[in-house]
């Protein structure tokens, strides 16, 4: 059996939404202090709807694939729905991750949550 599912390999080899958004409405970063991976999410939001999302990731194939999949899952969603994104949903959408790589999907959830909170705090200030 291969280390990763075909979906993981697809999102790793052809990551969606790679890059940055200038003047993003929300920016969030998450890192795993132990393994060292870092993920950064950029959101463009109009009327509480995520119209664009980009990511940058320093990490392994499953971290890159998790970022890519997470951006796909929240694109077009309302902020309150995107807030409900779980790492499990990311991992499931990738047809699963090896047990010791599950923390990569947690990073994606955390980076998106951080970006959404950044958006909300900017909006409220």
């Amino acid at each position, binding site marked *: 059996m291969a280390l990763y599912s075909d979906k993981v390999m697809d999102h*790793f*080899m052809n*990551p969606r939404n*790679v*890059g*940055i958004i200038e003047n993003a409405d929300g920016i969030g*970063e998450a890192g*795993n202090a*132990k*393994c*060292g*991976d*870092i*993920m*950064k999410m950029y959101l463009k939001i109009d009327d509480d709807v995520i119209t664009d999302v980009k*990511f*940058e*990731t*320093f*990490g*392994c*194939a499953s*971290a*890159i694939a998790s970022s890519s999949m997470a951006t796909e899952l929240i694109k077009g969603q309302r902020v309150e729905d995107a807030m409900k994104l779980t790492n499990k949903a990311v991992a499931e959408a990738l047809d699963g991750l090896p047990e*010791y790589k599950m*923390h990569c999907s947690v990073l994606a959830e955390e980076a998106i949550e951080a970006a959404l909170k950044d958006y909300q705090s900017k909006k409220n200030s």
Partner: protein
Amino acid sequence: MEIYADNAATTKMSDAAIAVMTDAMKNYYGNPSSLYLKGQRAKEKLEQARLEIADIINAEPREIIFTSGGSEADNQALLTAALLGGKKGKRHVISTAFEHHAILHTLKKLEKNGFEITLLPVHENGIIRLSELEDAMREDTCLVTVMTANNEIGTIQPVSEIGALCRKKGILFHTDAVQAVGHIPIDVKAQSIDMLSASAHKFHGPKGTGFLYCRRGIALSNLIEGGAQERGKRAGTENLPAIMGMAAALRESAEGMEAHNAHKAAVRDHLIRGLSQIPHSALNGDPSERLSGNVNFSFEGIEGESLLILLDRRGICASSGSACTSGSLDPSHVLLSIGRIHDVAHGSLRLTIGEDITLEQADYIIKNVKEVVEYLRSFSPVWRDLMSGKREFILK
């Protein structure tokens, strides 16, 4: 193009070894412990293999014990030294911070059983200092175990000097020579080595076979009890085909050693020059006191597992000390031991070339590593911070 550049992990089996093993399986299936002719013929082959192997490292045949590989040999050597030392109230062992886990984990076990362990630093170049070894030696030191060559960064330790020092002080000296046997000359007598571990699949022999050299006069302790094989020191019917294959592979490696090293060192240096052109990269380990087949680099701003998978897609098999490849979230203890911080160890690449490598293949590796590193950096938030000055470069 397909390039196997992970020879420190394992090597392709030699045709000579395969031929010998096939012959052994077909024609020498008798049990070497049986007294009829078929068994005794097998026994002759077993002893012939022992003689050949002993000869190559300048040992006596009776000093060679066949094992299931390097890890078993390491375990048996350390247990033996600890039991001998313990009887005399000597419960101190000296080793290094960057040994293979077969050594480090066994030392941990000894520590739990009342032994005190000193791990010598290996410094930035990946080589221990003799003065520090001498300073660490105590009245109750029963063993010094230092690997001949490191499996990740390929650095070669001053084994002869360590051996001489241990002999002078009356301390047993074991060396894990798994990466060295068949690759650099070993002379257990001239180098004052008391015990040495080796593994066949690192020099084009079969997996699951190795040997422990144990100097005459040192009473080996068993890991496996149950029979009179290996003079009672390692029970279990001998894996004759594998042992014969190991002897054939070692003979071939020893015969070709000089020519292979000259060729590999030239290609290694070509790779080092080429990869050094990648900005913010660094060679890990001493540039010259290293195995001729070992290249180990760190690239700042990227992670090693991604690099490996993308290189695999381009036909290159390599390895990394990244936390993401370890399964444990910890980066390589070897890279940490030479002072590489976590982030830099994360972006490491180990290429271990074999004698069949060509310059054309080396150029292909350089080209592809350059492209993949550049690609991964293009969307690395760490690289962005480094480039914008938010984070300081560690590798200049």
